[in-house]
């Protein structure tokens, strides 16, 4: 009857159980008896897994059943945990910063004068369910070839705000006296590089900038998230 059913499979266990039930009548008188019975029925078909240094127990059918149950639970649990895992990992799939273009006004506003023009822009960070708005200052400068560039006012040394000094015709950092030329080139002081130039574009004659932060204290310009 059980010859073609693999040992340990659910069908086999049910067969085993029904056989042991039949042997002792449909319902056991007491579970102690039940155990004895099962042991007999188990050993009578030559199971080797009954060896036990404690009290003997009906382990084969139960153990295999529990193994299948465990596997089933792992399977079903794995299936059910898919939404939980996706839910927990959701923030990893989202970009922290919304890098978008900020309008600075018509390009003509900046073409007339050679002096760097300060503009304050609002940048937005998406922080989970919050949108955090902060103000950043940028300078619009005219380069030698008459094109416009936008410089971040954050000093590449330690992040203090540099300020245009009209008398000295240079950008000065108030913290450690870093000095930069009108086009942002490093002149003197501790900063490791020129003022950071931001990405710009001109749409319908209006200058737009994409604000980004860069790592301070390093020679190269590395974008911070």
């Amino acid at each position: 009857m059980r010859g073609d059913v693999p040992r340990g499979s659910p069908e086999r266990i049910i067969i085993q159980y029904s056989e042991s039930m039949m042997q002792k009548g449909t319902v056991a008188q007491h579970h102690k008896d039940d155990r004895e019975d099962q042991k007999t029925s188990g050993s009578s078909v030559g199971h080797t897994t009954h060896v036990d240094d404690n009290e003997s127990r009906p382990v084969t059918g139960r153990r295999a059943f529990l193994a299948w149950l465990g596997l089933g639970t792992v399977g079903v649990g794995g299936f059910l945990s898919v939404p939980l895992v996706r839910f927990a990992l959701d923030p990893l799939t989202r970009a922290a910063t919304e890098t978008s273009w900020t309008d600075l006004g018509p390009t003509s506003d900046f073409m007339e004068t050679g002096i760097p023009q300060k503009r304050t822009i609002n940048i937005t960070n998406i922080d989970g369910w919050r949108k955090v708005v902060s103000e950043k200052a940028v300078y619009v400068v005219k380069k030698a070839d008459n094109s416009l560039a936008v410089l971040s006012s954050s000093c590449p040394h330690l992040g203090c705000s540099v300020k245009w000094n009209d008398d000295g015709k240079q950008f000065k950092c108030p913290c450690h006296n870093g000095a930069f030329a009108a086009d942002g080139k490093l002149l003197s002081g501790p900063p490791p590089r020129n003022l950071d130039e931001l990405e710009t574009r001109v749409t319908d004659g209006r200058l737009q900038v994409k604000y980004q932060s860069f790592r301070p204290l390093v020679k190269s310009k590395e974008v911070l998230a």
Partner: protein
Amino acid sequence: MSQNTITELVETQVQTNGKSRKAMNGAKVNGFIGWLDKRTGIRALSHEALDEPIPGGARWAYVFGSGLLYILLSQIITGVFLAMYYVASADHAHTTIEYITKQVTAGAFLRSLHSYGSSAMVVTLLVHLGQTYFFGSYKGRREILWMSGLILFAMVIGMAFTGYLLPWDQKAYFATAVGTNIAGEVPFIGDWIKSLMRGGTEMGTLTLSRFFVAHVFLIPACIFAFVGMHIYLFRKAGSAGPISEDSFEPKQKTEQFFPRQVIMDLVFATIIMATLGLLSYFSPVDLGPKANPSDTQFLPRPEWYYLPIFQWLKYWQGETAVIGIVVIPGIIAALLVVLPFMDRRRERRPWKRPVASFSFAIIFLGLVFLGWQSGDQDKSDPAVAKQLAKQAGETEKFMSAAFQPEVMGSPALTAAPLSPEATKGKKIFADNSCDGCHGESAQGTENGPKLIGVSLKFDHNELIKVLRNPTQKMRDGNMDPVEVSDEEMTYLTAFLESLK
């Protein structure tokens, strides 16, 4: 036979005959489980868990108790995950739930699973309780088991009540306002209880914090304790068996819990979870617009399982309210608690217990009728129906709108507009690169402290003095003297003093 002997034996077998691979595997499992059992006592534990005798044998009728355990497990898991995004504050609660519902992957699904799970909990609990009552399973040796179950029932109702407020949408807010008002009707201490629940006389963010703590810490801790106690008492008293079984000394032949009852329980749990999963997936629960306490039109309607009570209370207004709210429910609760002591007869068959069965039927049908009547009245009153339809429309509109994050700015961006002097001062603040270290809005950075509230630290003259001539500590932190005209200094201090 010792473990070593087995291993030796097996090894000998392997050496002597090639087909012993199976035997070796078997012995290995045995060896591992044997070792695990020595360390953990896992065999005795599984024996204890699985060999529970069930008088009269396994039955589908017995699946509800373990079904409740599975739902509880699901509620715990989904609840913990929801708490990853939820913030219990009147400012943010609604936004965070909106975020979960509209933005987070699988968020609507998990929230629905938790919400539908609460309904499943109440339904299954009512079946479990009703069955215990109707089949006389509370009788005989099971008095304390019955009472611990009643306490668990009250706790689950408390979980449903406290959890309902947490999304902080219109219906949550107003349903809880009604619920706490009902508590206020209790004689003598009603107002005090109401204030205790609300954290003040009015509903507000403190109410939400309290409900959150009750829902997430207090009641769950009690539920864990009482579920443990309930299961222990159940095993101690033993399974009740069929209605033909004696309630004091079970006599019928027993069948072990394992395997048939285990399988039945698992099948039932699978059906519940599959139903909840399908419901959550195809019909996720919605979220209404954020609570607006000044809305005087809103008609609160509780969750469906509270509707009979809601309707019941309509009959007890004014002076008589105390009878409907305290006296009658109190009497019913007290009767339920003392039931196993009042009813010591061994008879369990419902048709031989006319008083018990009849009162059960009356209360059950009464609740069904009240629930139906509540819905019917809402439909037949045109004004009410119109308002409820309007509310449903608002909810639908809110659900279809895109998620709006909460906008947070630095203080200056969100604060009231500055005075003309302070506006000039802000420009001076920026022109002198004060913002470089103190931040664009003087909120402070890693290079300099925040200046918000600086006027509390220095009065007007002191402020000018430290600006013109910073202290040594300030100089050490790279603060330079502020070199501006007296007029500019007036504006600058006006700006600094406006920072509160």
